[in-house]
C-alpha cells in the first residue's frame, strides 16, 4: 500500500468523476479505466473488463461497476465508499437544481444544453466500447461474438440478459 489512504483516494476520484459523467455510467467507463488501470494500477485490464461484465450481468444501475473497483482497492469499506462517492454528489446536485428550477422545460437553455451533450455522450460511449473491446476481443471467435450481439441487439428487442447469458455459455464451453 502506498502512503495515501486508499479510501480517500477512491472518494476523491469518484466524487470528482461523477460530476463529469455526462451521459451516465457508460460514458464514464473510459475515465474509470484510465484511472483504475493506467493511473493508479488498482486493477489489471482483464479485471476491469470482468468488472464491467459482472456489472452488466447484475441488477441495479450500471454505475455499480464502481462498487467492484472499490472492493478491489480496499475491500468492503472501499466498495461502499466508491459507490457513495459516485452517486451522492450528483444526486444532491440534482436535488438542489430541481428545487431551483421547478419547471425545467419552461426555459430553452436546459433543452439546448441537453441537445449539445448528446453527441458528446455518444462519443464517450463509443470510446467505452473501443477500450473494452481491445481487452476482450483477443480472438476471431470473440470478435465474432461481439459483432453478432451488436447486430442482434441493434435490429431486435431481445432482452439483453439473454445475450449476456448466451455469451457466458459460449465462453464456458470454450468456444470464445
Amino acid at each position, binding site marked *: 500500500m502506498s502512503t495515501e489512504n486508499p479510501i480517500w483516494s477512491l472518494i476523491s476520484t469518484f466524487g*470528482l*468523476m461523477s460530476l*463529469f*459523467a*455526462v451521459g*451516465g*455510467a*457508460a460514458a464514464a467507463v*473510459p475515465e474509470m479505466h484510465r484511472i483504475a488501470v493506467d493511473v493508479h494500477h488498482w486493477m489489471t485490464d482483464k479485471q476491469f473488463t470482468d468488472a*464491467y461484465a*459482472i*456489472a*452488466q*450481468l*447484475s*441488477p*441495479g*444501475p450500471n454505475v*455499480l461497476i464502481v*462498487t*467492484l473497483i472499490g*472492493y478491489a482497492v480496499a475491500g468492503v469499506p472501499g*466498495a461502499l465508499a466508491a459507490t457513495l462517492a*459516485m*452517486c*451522492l454528489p*450528483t*444526486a*444532491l*446536485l*440534482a*436535488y438542489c437544481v*430541481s428545487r431551483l428550477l421547478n419547471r*425545467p*422545460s419552461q426555459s430553452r437553455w*436546459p433543452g*439546448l444544453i*441537453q441537445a449539445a451533450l*448528446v*453527441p*458528446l*455522450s455518444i*462519443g464517450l*460511449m*463509443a470510446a467505452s466500447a473501443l477500450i*473494452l*473491446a481491445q481487452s476482450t*476481443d483477443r480472438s476471431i471467435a470473440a470478435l465474432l*461474438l*461481439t459483432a453478432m450481439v*451488436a447486430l442482434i441487439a*441493434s435490429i431486435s428487442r431481445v432482452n*439483453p440478459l439473454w*445475450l*449476456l447469458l*448466451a*455469451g*457466458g455459455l459460449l*465462453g464456458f464451453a470454450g*468456444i470464445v
Partner: protein
Amino acid sequence: MSTDSAPAMHEPDQAPAIPAARVPSPGLLALSLAFARMSLAGFGGVLVFARRAIVEQHCWMTADEFNETFALCHFLPGPNIVNLSMVFGSRLRGIAGGVAAFTGLLLPPTLIMTVLAIIYARFGDVEMLRRSLAGISCAAVGLLIAVVFRMMTPLLKRMEIVVLILMLGVFLAIGVLRLPLQAVLLVAIPLSIGITYVMRRKVAA
C-alpha cells in the same frame, strides 16, 4: 335529510375531473421499497422499470411530470437513474423522501455487487469462471455497440457534419488518445453548446 352523506365526501370534489392522475404521497418505507423493486428488476438499465412503476403502477406522477423530471436528471451529470431517485423522492416526500428513494435504489444492488466482488476475488482465477466471464464481456461490449448505434441513428439521419465531427473528436480523444475526461469535456462542452446555439438560430431564421 342530508346527514348521511355530508362529512367525508367533501374534499375529493375534483377527483373525477382528473382520473388516474395522482394518489396521495407514499410513505417513506413504501417509496424505498418501490425503488428497491425497480432497481432489482432492472437488469441492463433501470429507467424502463422506474417509469412503469412510478407512472403506471403507483400513479405517483403523470407521464408529463415524469418526462419533465427525467429531462432534468438527464441534463445533469452523473448516473441518471440515481439522480432521478433523489429528485423523484424529494418531489413526493421532501428531502427524507429523496434519501429513502436513493437508499432503496442503491442499497440492495450494492450489497449484491459486494458479494459478487468477494466471490470474484476468491474464485476469479478458476478457469471455468474466467472463460464464462470472457464470453459475457464480449456480449456486453456488443450490447454497448448496439446502444451507440441506436443513439447515433438520428444524428446520422440529420447529417449535421459539425456535430458528427464533434462526436468523432470526443471518441478519438478519449478512446484512442486516452486523454483525461475533464480536460476533453472542458473543451468539448462549450464548443458543442456554441455549435448547437448557432445551428438553432440558423434553423429559426
